[in-house]
């Protein structure tokens, strides 16, 4: 089974802190994604990566950055956390599929609270 793990289930940080959210997948997937989930808004894509050291902005990248130094690990970084970044963060991975229909496998999520 594909397994996507995230470093923390719950995290509480203070405004202005630098925050690292870690994601690891064990199936050698090329694609990795970071989403945030907010009530009534569904999931919104923050950043994604197609390969090591490669990153692309998603729909809401402002206030975030990412790092992918190894194929299995994709980190989301909040350079200076703000209260409007309080949210559930979900990591996902997938195999590239030019034909369409590729399934994304999701981690359990990290619920981040910024005070």
């Amino acid at each position, binding site marked *: 089974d594909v397994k996507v793990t995230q470093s923390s289930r719950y995290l509480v940080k203070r405004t202005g802190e630098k925050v690292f959210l870690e994601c690891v997948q064990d199936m050698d997937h090329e694609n990795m994604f970071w989403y945030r989930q907010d009530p*009534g808004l569904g999931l919104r894509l923050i950043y994604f990566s197609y390969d090591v050291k490669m990153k692309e902005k998603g729909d809401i990248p402002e206030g975030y950055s990412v790092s992918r130094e190894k194929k299995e690990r994709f980190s989301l970084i909040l350079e200076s956390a703000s209260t409007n970044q309080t949210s559930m963060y979900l990591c996902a991975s997938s195999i590239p599929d030019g034909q369409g229909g*590729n399934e994304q496998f999701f981690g359990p999520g990290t619920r981040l609270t910024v005070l």
Partner: protein
Amino acid sequence: AQSVTQLDSHVSVSEGTPVLLRCNYSSSYSPSLFWYVQHPNKGLQLLLKYTSAATLVKGINGFEAEFKKSETSFHLTKPSAHMSDAAEYFCVVRGGNSGGGADGLTFGKGTHLIIQP
């Protein structure tokens, strides 16, 4: 750009009665469509997917969805609801609005399914 609209934010049904969760999509090309489910305090799980093969797609736990191009719809159904079906359901189209590239996904805002005993 691709988008999906889930027509109901909440749906409440009695146990044993049919379930209908509605989704309309917009796509500039032949879409790949998915339904994901999220149970409380659990990760997202793929229910089913449509990728231009059969228009009636069967998924896990007795769910199915029908792709109707003329109506741009991909509604999720189940003949008989079970208490364990209570969850958040997301309709998803492949391809991002402005990001995610060809492999990205665009999610609807979700439908919360409530099962009454």
